[in-house]
């Protein structure tokens, strides 16, 4: 009578390797989120530039942003796409003309970004860069606005 012996395979079983690998792929694909990694840059004055001269309100262009997105430019309501045309002659006379963006505390933040973005695109749209844009905070307005 023949006795059967169990033969033990000397190789590592790799048949399920592909299944495991594909499960890992599915996990990565499901959990991966494509994060937004771009935005508008906004440089603040450095410490050594503390002696930056105060901007005279009368010399600057004031853009006020009301809740709902209404823009008041130097006291006159204007649509966003006409701001650069309004600024162009002023910038031609004075390339360092200060432009102040003053959003109302209840205005939506998105409108501030829209105005800032429009000013940053001045070089492409009207051929002159708006070099001097400031967005004073409420604390600065209370301290320095006169």
């Amino acid at each position, binding site marked *: 009578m023949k006795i059967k012996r169990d033969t033990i395979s000397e190789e590592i079983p790799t048949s399920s390797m592909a299944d495991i690998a594909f499960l890992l792929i599915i996990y990565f694909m499901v959990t991966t989120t494509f994060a937004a990694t*771009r935005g508008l840059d906004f440089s603040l004055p450095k410490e050594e530039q503390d002696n930056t001269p105060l901007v005279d309100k009368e010399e600057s262009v004031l853009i006020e942003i009301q809740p*709902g997105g209404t823009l008041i430019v130097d006291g006159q309501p204007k649509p966003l796409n006409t701001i650069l045309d309004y600024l162009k002659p002023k910038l031609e006379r004075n390339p360092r003309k200060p432009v102040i963006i003053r959003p109302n505390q209840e205005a939506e*933040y998105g409108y501030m970004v829209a105005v800032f973005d429009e000013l940053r695109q001045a070089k492409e749209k009207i051929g002159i860069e708006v070099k001097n844009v400031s967005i004073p905070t409420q604390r600065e307005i209370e301290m320095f606005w006169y």
Partner: protein
Amino acid sequence: MKLKARGTQNEGIPTASMADIAFLLIIFFMVTINFEVDKATVALPKSGLRFEIPKKSAYISVTSNGVIRVSSGEEISVPVPGPENVLSFAVDVVANNPGKAFVLKADKDVPYRYVDGVIDALKQARAEVIYLLSEQETVDGEDGGSG
């Protein structure tokens, strides 16, 4: 004369290299994955100009209901009670790395007073660069301010 048996064709699909391909894909995902330090869900404002944000920047997020979260870029963001806490956070970050960029991830519909408090805190902390996180503006997209 003996005839050689014809070459038998294997009917199965060769799957021996399947695991190699799968592992290559895993390595690709692991290398390219970008871990978000801030998971707050916000509707970002749109802008035509967008610049690449440096990696490991500090994040400050403001949700539509005014919840502020901060992260130094190394760990997951944590909520803070108000802008005064943003100031202490920003001072700490700037003290450790003076040139560190801050990313402001705020909801487009949040009242500006929340963002104003954050920007003011960053100004007081002597932050040098702030990035306003935004989405690409499209032709048919809304462009912000109205008349």
